[in-house]
């Protein structure tokens, strides 16, 4: 298996980070190192808890779902109902935004129009259900409702602007 240089550099940097954290925790009892190491391990746990299943489902989507279905519902000529599909898909998910990039890439590869890809990313970043329930708890439903009211047209507009630029997939 070939390893690309970016992975090696990334793993090296991770090693350096962990070394400095360990050094700071054991020898300096450094508060900064303890906090950084703690949150890094917490995020790592979250990543390995949510993302493998996300990628397994992307794999299933990639192999099982025919291109025609994606093109018909969210392709270039799908019509505005596609916006609803993308928002629904985004709302039902959880996890950080960087988990949505591979999903977007998989959709794009199957023929989903660029504008809908970016509407999906927009909806994912601002209106996931788990996040909304949290927001309502701490800031009240009025704040959430008004934020959504203003945010919805903004990210749909951004989607349409981005749709003019072709989203291309590197992987």
């Amino acid at each position: 298996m070939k390893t690309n240089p970016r992975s090696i550099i990334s793993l090296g940097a991770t090693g350096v980070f962990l070394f400095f954290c360990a050094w700071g925790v054991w020898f300096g009892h450094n508060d900064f190192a303890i906090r950084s190491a703690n949150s890094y391990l917490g995020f790592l746990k979250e990543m390995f808890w949510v993302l493998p299943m996300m990628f397994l489902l992307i794999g299933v989507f990639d192999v099982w779902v025919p291109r025609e279905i994606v093109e018909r519902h969210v392709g270039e000529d799908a019509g505005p109902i596609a916006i609803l599909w993308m928002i629904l898909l985004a709302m039902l998910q959880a996890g950080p935004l960087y988990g949505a990039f591979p999903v977007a890439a998989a959709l794009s590869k199957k023929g989903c129009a660029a504008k809908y890809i970016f509407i999906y990313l927009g909806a994912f970043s601002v209106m996931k259900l788990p996040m909304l329930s949290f927001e309502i708890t701490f800031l009240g439903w009025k704040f959430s409702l008004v934020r959504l009211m203003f945010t919805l047209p903004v990210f749909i507009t951004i989607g349409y602007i981005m749709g003019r630029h072709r989203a291309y997939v590197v992987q």
Partner: protein
Amino acid sequence: MAFNLIGLCILAACFALDRHKTIRSVHRGLMMFWKIVPEMSIVLILISISLSVLTPTQLRQWLSADTPAHFVLALAVGSVALIPGFVAFPLAGVLLKNGASITLVAGFLTTLLMVGVVTLPMEARYFGWRTALLRNGLSFIGAVAIALAMGRLL
């Protein structure tokens, strides 16, 4: 938890339908995952460091006044930092209770949600730098507009 359970059910159903196709899907999914783990790790390190620098106490001090300069600071912090929701929303609630304006709190939250400077390398890996920068730039402008509009209305 629920997400993983539903995922497992879907995988089991696929496996019952077509064993070989499912094995191929699983293989493809896991390969995609392994390939991005190292870069993901870098993003997590950046998030961890930024969280250690910008503790909630620190942010409460920084975002306590309502001058335009503080609004700009809130936008900058929101854009760069990647603070998870369970830290950010309680913090925003405290800021509002302490008398911060809606505009400032909304600006902080909307940039936090919509703009991700730290995750730019990941985004660029999938869409290219031009697209990633454009999306974040437009999102930033949108976030500022949303914050100003919310300040007017609430």
